[in-house]
């Protein structure tokens, strides 16, 4: 579980986060949604320790991140898996080497054991043997995302962060990736935090949603509640696409 309390962050006197309070629950896919510039990425990077907040507390399983020693912070990072927007796979390494990277860096043991674990997670994300020795540039965007997920979970993390995991993917692949993230969250019993502005993701995996607007937590709930709320700030965002607008009109007409 990750809890943020009264989190403030600003850049060059511009307040980006203005007192966020939220609990990211264990075993659930926690979504941070909101328009571009609402502070989603800044919140995520503050939770990861990339940005230092001016005020507020970030607690990992009840322990404040700001109280961690440098050694404890390093240890915590080994428990974190991160899926970047573009995958952030290492171009110079094959799929297998990319997934093995965290094991080589932080785990002791024989290469064969590492390889067994790599093959296990690659199979778990449904990547066949034919792609193992390919370079990231030689595989599709969807496969790159799968490799990135495999790399994020290979070290059995306790926390998984995903920055717009289905950006640049077709709707079908995006759904597959969303479902995969959700399945892994339940299977590994981890705290997963996903940044997205894709309403399909909200529908698929939104178990615990934080809606940010201009650096403020404007709404929180789950996927069943978000389509029922009358909160205008949320409905403006949720029904911004034509498809969801039609759904909303149908809802209002009682169809």
């Amino acid at each position, binding site marked *: 579980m990750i809890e943020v309390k009264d989190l403030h962050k600003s850049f060059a006197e511009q307040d980006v986060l203005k007192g966020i309070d939220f609990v990211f629950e264990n075993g659930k896919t926690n979504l941070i949604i909101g328009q571009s510039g609402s502070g989603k990425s800044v919140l995520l990077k503050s939770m990861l320790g990339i940005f230092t907040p001016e005020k507020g507390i970030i607690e990992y399983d009840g322990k404040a991140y700001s109280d961690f020693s440098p050694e404890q912070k*390093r240890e915590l*990072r080994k428990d974190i898996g991160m899926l*970047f927007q*573009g995958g*952030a796979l290492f171009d110079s390494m094959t799929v297998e080497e990319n997934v093995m990277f*965290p094991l*080589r*860096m*932080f785990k002791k043991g024989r290469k064969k054991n590492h390889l067994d674990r790599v093959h296990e997670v690659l199979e778990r994300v449904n990547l066949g043997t034919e792609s193992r020795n390919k370079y990231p540039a030689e595989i599709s965007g969807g496969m790159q995302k799968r490799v990135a997920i495999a790399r994020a979970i290979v070290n059995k993390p306790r926390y998984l962060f995903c920055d717009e995991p289905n950006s640049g993917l077709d709707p079908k692949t995006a759904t597959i990736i969303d479902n995969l993230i959700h399945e892994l969250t339940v299977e590994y019993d981890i705290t997963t935090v996903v940044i997205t502005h894709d309403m399909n993701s909200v529908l698929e995996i939104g178990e615990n949603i934080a809606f940010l607007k201009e650096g403020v937590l404007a709404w929180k709930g789950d996927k069943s509640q978000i389509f029922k709320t009358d909160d205008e700030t949320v409905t403006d965002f949720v029904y911004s696409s034509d498809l969801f607008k039609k759904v909303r009109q149908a809802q209002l007409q009682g169809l």
Partner: protein
Amino acid sequence: MSYLHSIGEYIIMIKGVFGRMTKRSVLKELIFKEIDELIIGSLGIVAFLSFFIGGVVALQTALNLNNPLIPKSLVAYAARQSIILEFSPTFISIIMAGKVGSFITSSIGSMRVTEQIDALEVMGVNSLNYLIFPKIVAMLTYPFVIAISMFLGITGAYAAAVFGGFLSPEDFIGGLQDDFIGFHIFYAFFKTFLFAMILATVPAYHGYYMTGGSLEVGKASTTSFVWTSVVIIVTNYIVTQLLLS
């Protein structure tokens, strides 16, 4: 002010490079990979340039020596001095700023743009050490490249002067040995070592701290080449002033 900021950032980067070290087995592999890419991969162009520039230096000297009172062996002497003192250490380093420097900037810059450096940091890897330290260690072998360049430069000068019919092999060897000062070799390799450190770190700085997208990677490579060359030229002047004047 921005120059001061850059110098400060560069110093902080160097401190970070020697901070928390990457696992030894991984580092060893990275160092060999960098030696292959930065050093072995540059030998061909260095050998080609050195041989022909050495030849041109000898030709130019021979063609401009019209006074019968000046011994012909001066061709070899002039070639030796210009190749050992300046051409091999300094001008090959400037060429390397274009080849190796641009490669370092663009490879690290691409990693920055595609969030690969962020990925390293999030995993708890000291990205500065992981990316730049192996390059610094690999560049410690750079003086060997310069030694090869010196040898081939003088060989090129010999070929042009002797086979071009300007002077006999004995005259050339005699000229090569005239007034030889051993300290010049120390001077040449001392500054080569400094240039190697500049070649490894200045382009790395431009790649690591770049912002923007792929277009900026190209711009960073150009800026890196300009600044690496400027730093090499200024360092060359200071070292020459300190050691030889």
